């Protein structure tokens, strides 16, 4: 079974896509955060497996570690704390119904697989399907951002999008560690800024529903 390592890599990348679908499916914030944690864990495992496949890549192990530490532990815990303190863990907050969103997600997955298979016809099969999965994860993250009303779930959507980017980078061999650390830190800082803003918004308007911001702005979309 010479293809087994590649199959495992695909299994993990596919698992990441599956997690993305699960995230779209969740309409409660606390459940969403749990799935996001699982998303990050699968990402870390996938990157670690890539590191194992590509041999002596200390960088990728470190990337996996960073992903595990920040995305699977620090960020979900902090977000869960925010959600608890805001008291919105039971809120149902999708704009578009779950079924149409899932259907759109399936369409996006099909689109990215067709696209990547055609564009990277000559490339390494490992990188090729990884890229297709990564694009799917990115698109699903964007889909999540546009179908949710709550600022917290938009943050989660953004983070999952970023997970997709890391998956693509890990598959593409030779992404320098500096870039990864920079990305990880920028995500962390973005997360902090957004968290601060969430509390600010909450203090002002008693809600983190983005529709409230539009009303305050005065002009109606």
């Amino acid at each position: 079974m010479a293809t087994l390592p590649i199959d495992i890599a695909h299994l993990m990348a596919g698992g990441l896509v599956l997690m993305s679908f699960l995230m779209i499916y969740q309409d409660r914030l606390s459940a969403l955060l749990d799935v996001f944690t699982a998303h990050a864990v699968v990402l870390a495992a996938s990157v670690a497996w890539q590191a194992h496949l590509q041999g002596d890549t200390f960088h990728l192990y470190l990337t996996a570690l960073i992903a595990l530490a920040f995305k699977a532990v620090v960020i979900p815990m902090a977000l869960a704390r925010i959600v608890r303190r805001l008291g919105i863990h039971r809120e149902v907050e999708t704009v578009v119904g779950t079924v149409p969103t899932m259907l759109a997600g399936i369409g996006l997955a099909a689109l990215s697989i067709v696209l990547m298979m055609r564009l990277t016809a000559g490339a390494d099969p490992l990188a090729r399907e990884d890229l297709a999965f990564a694009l799917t994860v990115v698109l699903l993250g964007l889909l999540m951002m546009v179908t949710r009303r709550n600022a917290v779930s938009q943050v989660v959507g953004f983070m999952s999008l970023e997970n997709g980017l890391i998956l693509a980078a890990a598959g593409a061999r030779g992404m320098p560690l500096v870039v990864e650390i920079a990305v990880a830190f920028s995500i962390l800082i973005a997360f902090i800024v957004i968290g601060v803003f969430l509390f600010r918004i909450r203090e002002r308007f008693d809600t983190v529903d983005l529709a409230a911001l539009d009303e305050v702005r005065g002009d109606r979309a």
Partner: protein
Amino acid sequence: MPPVDAAALIAGALLALGPAALAFGGRARGAIHAAATLLCLLAAETGGAALLTGTTTTLTLPIGLPWLGARLALDPLAAVFVLLLGLGGAAASLSSIGYYRHDPAPLRSLPFQPPFLGAMLAVLLAADAFSFLMAWEVMSLLSWALVMVDHRDAATRQAGFVYLAMAAFGTLALLLAFGLMAGPAGGYGFDAIRALPPAPLTVAAILGLMLLGAGSKAGLVPLHVWLPLAHPAAPSPVSALMSGVMTKVAVYAFLRVAFDLLPPAPWWAGSAVIVLGAGSAVLGILLAVVEADMKRALACSTIENIGVIFAATGLALAFRSGGMPALAALALSAALFHALNHMAMKSLLFLGAGAVLHATGTRMLDRMGGLIHRMPATAALMLLGVTAIAALPPLNGFASEWLVFQAVLASPALPQPALQMLVPAAGGLLALAAALAAAAFVRLYGVAFLGRPRTPEAAAAPEADRATLAAMGALALLCIGAGLLPGLVLDLIAPAARQLTGATLPAQAHQPWLTLVPVSAARGTYNGLLVGLFVALSAGLAAGVIHRTASRRLRRAPAWDCGFPQSLPDSQYGAGSFAQPIRRVLGRPLLNARETVHMPPPGDPSPARLTVTAADPAWAALYAPLGRGINATAAYANRFQALSIRRYLSLVFASLVLLLLGLALWG
């Protein structure tokens, strides 16, 4: 020093005069305009010398794009226009010494006028697309600043806005044209573009874009609408520069691309240029005939002359694609010659119009009259100018238009039947335009300078200042010289014709009596010198005979009052009355001219009124719908100004998915 180095130095010095004007303030205006005059004369000398030797010199400056530098070249084509720019710029700068004498705010125009000349010179010298577009845009912006000198007037602001919009549009078209020429490899140097000729359909597309870009700057119908607004709004020396020189820089851009950078275009591309040129000629001069404003009438006549130049250029394109280099050289020489002539006569007329505006405080023809008594020198020079531009022999306007018609008459040699039919029709339109031009300038001169003064200001008009008179005199000498000795001018521009078409007219200098023989003696000849001698002799003889034989006895009798017993100045033949026949015949279908008579009923003491309206058809047909469309689109797009964050994200997401979809389907 090689000519191109000298020309580049002159351009740099002209550009540097702008900051110098700021540093020294308005006190140094005379010195700065004098310096600009000298530099322009040097430029003319450089261009003329380069033309006489017929050589090409190049220069690469380490500025601009890092891998390209600024490439400059002075070849015969550029040299013709450098000569033109030098002469026109020198006259306008010389006249500026006097024109701005009493200007209360000299810094509104002084820092821009010499750099404007420098930027135009840079356009002529540029030999790569980047420097060319850069210089072109600087030229547009500086001329815009000069149009806006009198910015307190709402009409000027409107003119400036329209001009700016058209200039931006023109530059966009040029940008696209050079992008197409550079091709996917991105060779922006002119030599790289010449080395890789594009496909025939691309050639036609580039020519179309050049017609939009250069045509909008030159004032080709229907892109001319800014010209009658902006040229008159500027101070008169600037009007002279814009009409006399800047439109020629646009012609240069078109010639450079159409003949030098591109391979021969398909024949129908040439026919499109001919049709546009002939249409511009007729519509432009018709606008000039009905125009009541002196400077606007002159600007409209610029549209006509640009039309003539473009019609000749189109003929040259057609002959070139038909493989007839000698005839192409004939048409192209006619275009270049007319460009030079129009620079001289239109600058002369605009400087004279500036003197009249200065003296009477108005641009309206119906508020002038009788100026020949108050401004005799201006009137005499203006008479030369209108005679030249009305294409009367023996002046230069006739010589170049005659040459254009020689090219038109050679059209049966063209292989395409469509062109064989089209060119004589275009020739008919050009003949109509020439006749209307005569009417327009008889009207302009007669109403402004002859008759009796219509206003007290006109009755007390002072003569123009000496600097302006000197500039006008120099231009008038050019008009006379080029009219009497057209063969020498054609010999001078022959290297440019050879560079662009591979052929030239037969050398004219050795012809007996300096006769102009463009093709062969059997086809047609013109001798400006003999015609001039004949005109001078016969007129002198007639004057002598009349003076000798007429009775000197004083007679007193009631003057014929033309049926008007009240001899008010207003009862004279005015600008509107002179234009009426042409306005009724041609203005009604072409300009939508309407006359409404308001006759008060019996018992109503209000005066009867005759209201005459005429409008440029391009506004109603093209620009008004365009403006409405842009407004509607903007109102619609305004909705996207205030969306929620989620909707903005959705827009980004939707466009991303759409692009990916497109890639998946056609990638």
